[in-house]
């Protein structure tokens, strides 16, 4: 009798533990597997490598120590509050601007802050114009605004550099043609990096902000107007504060992306100040010290990670606090648009339009570069040729990079989809201790700079695999493929996971519960009922993850470059961009391939999912 009681009590206790941890009332294999696989995958391939790096960075002479951090923070090379260099150099032919040198760490922070500021200014302005006003040509704006989203690593920054040379198109127009500038201005170095990043990342702010604006319950603005508010006051007190979560999300992502970007510093590396950024320093040291587990690199990577995590943590806290679940009831949703006043027309066509056109010049430049023979001494490219494109198609030694990239990205997407569906399902449907952890882990890779993952993987795989294994980066038979697939699957998971999470949120849990109540297993209910309902979200997210995986740089040009025959196309593009000037055309041709892939993905997902476009956001 007593033992029977005891087992009942024990059973009840077990069940309670199950419920607390997983949020499931009964033992359910499918649910538990759906917890364990994503958790294990992200733990092994993200947390452990980062921990490995932490260990290296905090060890000195075999003991825990802050030595490497102290050493970094005490060097003027890394932090120099008194800047080196001058704002500009006035040479006889032109004015040269490359930025001040505050040391590697401060440089990275300053660049990221300026980029964020600039991108936010441009992104919010454009989002407001597109949200509020109807004007002739608006649909053209809408299409143009997608163009800066097309990623062409290295080459877009390279084109920005071409544009701002003393004989580039910028000076050709403003100095030679119009004559506003008394002397040509040559922009390079950190300032060049800043401009290249700002025009590459402002669409992230634009899209997040635009989505926030569109989500504002129109009656909130109407009520303010009805109480007498109008114009700028309305914008300042109602519209902007309501869109703030979206603006903040876009700005933070921009900050993180700028901080972790390696493409622009590499494209501008000929100005040595552009090398004085954290990412470039890690990369540079990685190249020169391969084979050696450098604690200094690890420490630098930890600092980069910390900065990025800090930004990420702030925004997550802020956005979840301020997530205005719009409390609409009985209101009708429509977007409040107005016709601009005459002076607003003037602003739209003389300031906003040229600005948008300016921000798509990198992509136009990439295409021009891809199809031209020469573009070095003239403001515009010369000599049309199909040679570069046809070489990609015909030359097996070039073609294989494209094939490698597609293979790796595609395999990574398969992993991403399986893990994202499991993770989003359990974190959405169950309320256990683990649910929010799973959810957070799927978004977490957004906050981890690519170069940090690259270094972490290098140390991790070098230490856990046998010396001669194909997975060991130090072995002669090393094949970077599997590691790249894992890296892509971790780094690009958030896009798919968020999209699926949003999809599952739209489907009421009672749909599966009804199926289970009628005798179906959870597995069958999820596969037969939920998955078909969220197919569009899966597809949209997978598409986005795919194009971002194709254009991944940090891991590709470090670990991927260790064995060039198995390298992805971005690794080859890097090689081309840093070698002799003429090879930039080939890099641009590869960039053109990436553009083509991205446009196909956008068109495909627009047709299939009927959404206007998928985009990145943290919500």
């Amino acid at each position, binding site marked *: 009798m007593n033992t029977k009681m005891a087992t009942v009590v024990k059973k009840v206790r077990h069940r309670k533990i199950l419920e607390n941890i997983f949020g499931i009332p009964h033992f359910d294999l499918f649910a538990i597997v759906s917890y364990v696989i994503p958790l294990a995958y992200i733990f092994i391939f993200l947390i452990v490598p980062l921990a490995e790096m932490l260990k290296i960075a905090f060890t000195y002479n075999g003991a825990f120590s802050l030595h490497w951090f102290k050493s970094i923070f005490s060097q003027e090379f890394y932090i120099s509050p008194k800047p080196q260099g001058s704002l500009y150099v006035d040479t006889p032919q032109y004015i040269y601007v490359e930025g001040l040198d505050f040391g590697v760490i401060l440089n990275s922070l300053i660049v990221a802050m300026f980029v964020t500021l600039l991108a936010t200014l441009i992104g919010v302005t454009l989002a407001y114009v597109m949200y509020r006003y109807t004007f002739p040509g608006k649909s053209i704006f809408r299409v143009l605004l997608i163009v800066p989203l097309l990623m062409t690593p290295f080459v877009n920054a390279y084109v920005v550099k071409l544009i701002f040379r003393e004989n580039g198109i910028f000076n050709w127009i403003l100095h030679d043609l119009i004559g506003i500038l008394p002397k040509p201005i040559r922009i390079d170095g950190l300032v060049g990096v800043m401009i290249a990043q700002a025009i590459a990342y402002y669409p992230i702010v634009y899209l997040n902000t635009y989505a926030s604006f569109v989500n504002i319950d129109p009656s909130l603005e109407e009520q303010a107007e009805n109480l*007498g508010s109008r114009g700028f006051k309305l914008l300042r007190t109602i519209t902007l504060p309501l869109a703030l979560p979206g603006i903040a999300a876009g700005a933070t992502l921009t900050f993180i992306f700028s901080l972790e970007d390696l493409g622009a510093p590499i494209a501008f590396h000929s100005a040595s100040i552009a090398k004085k950024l954290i990412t470039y320093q890690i990369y540079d040291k990685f190249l020169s010290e391969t084979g050696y587990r450098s604690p200094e690199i690890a420490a630098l990577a930890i600092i980069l990670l910390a900065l990025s995590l800090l930004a990420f943590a702030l925004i997550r806290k802020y956005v979840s606090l301020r997530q*205005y*679940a719009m409390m609409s009831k009985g209101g009708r949703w429509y977007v409040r648009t107005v016709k601009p006043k005459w002076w607003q027309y003037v602003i739209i066509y003389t300031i906003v339009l040229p600005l948008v056109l300016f921000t798509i010049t990198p992509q136009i430049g990439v295409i021009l570069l891809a199809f031209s023979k020469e573009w070095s001494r003239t403001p515009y490219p010369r000599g049309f040729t199909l040679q570069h494109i046809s070489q990609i198609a015909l030359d097996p030694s070039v073609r294989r990079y494209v094939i490698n990239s597609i293979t790796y990205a595609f395999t990574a997407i398969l992993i991403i989809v399986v893990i994202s569906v499991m993770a989003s399902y359990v974190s959405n449907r169950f309320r256990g201790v683990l649910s929010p952890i799973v959810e957070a882990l799927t978004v977490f890779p957004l906050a981890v700079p690519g170069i940090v993952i690259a270094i972490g993987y290098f140390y991790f795989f070098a230490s856990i695999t046998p010396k001669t294994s194909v997975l060991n980066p130090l072995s002669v038979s090393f094949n970077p493929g599997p590691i790249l697939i894992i890296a892509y699957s971790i780094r690009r998971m958030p896009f798919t996971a968020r999209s699926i999470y949003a999809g599952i949120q739209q489907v009421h849990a009672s749909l599966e519960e009804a199926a289970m109540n009628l005798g179906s297993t959870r597995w069958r209910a999820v596969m037969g009922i939920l998955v078909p309902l969220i197919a569009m979200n899966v597809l949209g997210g997978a598409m986005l993850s795919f194009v971002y995986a194709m254009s991944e740089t940090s891991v590709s040009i470090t670990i991927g470059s260790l064995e060039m025959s198995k390298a992805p196309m971005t690794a080859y593009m890097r090689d081309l961009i840093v070698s002799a000037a003429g090879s930039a055309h080939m890099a641009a041709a590869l960039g053109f391939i990436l553009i083509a892939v991205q446009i196909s993905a956008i068109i495909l997902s627009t047709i299939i999912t009927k959404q206007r476009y998928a985009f990145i956001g943290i919500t």
Partner: protein
Amino acid sequence: MITLVTVKIDRVVKRFGEIVALKGVSLEIKHGELFTLLGPSGCGKTTLLRIIAGLEYPDEGRVYFDGSDVTDLKTYERGAVLVFQNYALWPHMTVYENIAYGLKIRKIPRDEIKERVKRALELVKLEGYEDRYPTQLSGGQQQRVALARALAVQPKLLLLDEPLSNLDAKLRIEMRSEIKRIQRELDITVIYVTHDQEEAMALSDRVAVMNFGVIEQVGTPREIYQRPKTKFVADFMGKNNILPAKILEIKNGRATLEVLGHRISGIPAENILGDYSDLYFSIRPEKVSLTPFEGAQAFEGRVDLVEYYGFFVEIVIKIKDVFFFVRVPDLKEPLKQGDNIKVYFNPRDVILLQE
């Protein structure tokens, strides 16, 4: 300081694509009147109110305040303050900030703003809620904040779109007396939208009954209740018996009808609203009695249900497969289902209506 406002709506038409939400609506609302727009869901009440507020532009017709055309004025130029059906509370502002917003726009001094917010919260019985955010309030509390926000600016014309729909029955009755009191006290014009006929009757100086974008009747609650002009109004305003009828003859200003196989005579011809074909007989349940009296007409049927409401008893009677409702203060002897019953009414209480 506060000027009274008259509102004139002249043949206003509003289309949303295929849907014609308002089909030529004309109305005149007097100074200091509490005027109610009453009608079923989707009949165009909100649309009309939004046109008056200046949030919607009519496709045809004009709107006048105090005789001057305001059709082209923006909502912020009209001073007609609207309480939205969905409250429209700003989620990024506290209750205090929400209520103070309109006062700040009007450049009211700080101390006075404090005072007015306090008073507005007292009026809606939400003292002490200043620092809450709208998401931390229940639906009914949110609705009262929306009301307070409008009252605080002391508008000359107040537009209320179902402002009490989310309150419990007791609070709703209290708040509607409060609205009436405020309207008297501030001497303002109020246009009040509701689909609750009881609320409309209790509150209004005059009521406009709307249906499918058309105003069916305008009048005092009493007029509308007692002399509905259309079958729709008769049906919508309280419980009513509406039965198809045929005029047999009219003699000396009195009509004789056939209703459900009964011959009913002595109905005053002035109670025939509309022309003489396709008519409906209507009589309120409380105008019917169980005891005969001088000059009464009668129906015969069987008892179907007896429902006890407290201050009256409703008897549902089946006459030839049609339900007929009778309300009496009390029953002298119990009735059983299936009992034969005869009910009596005065032919002067009968109104004949058209579809």
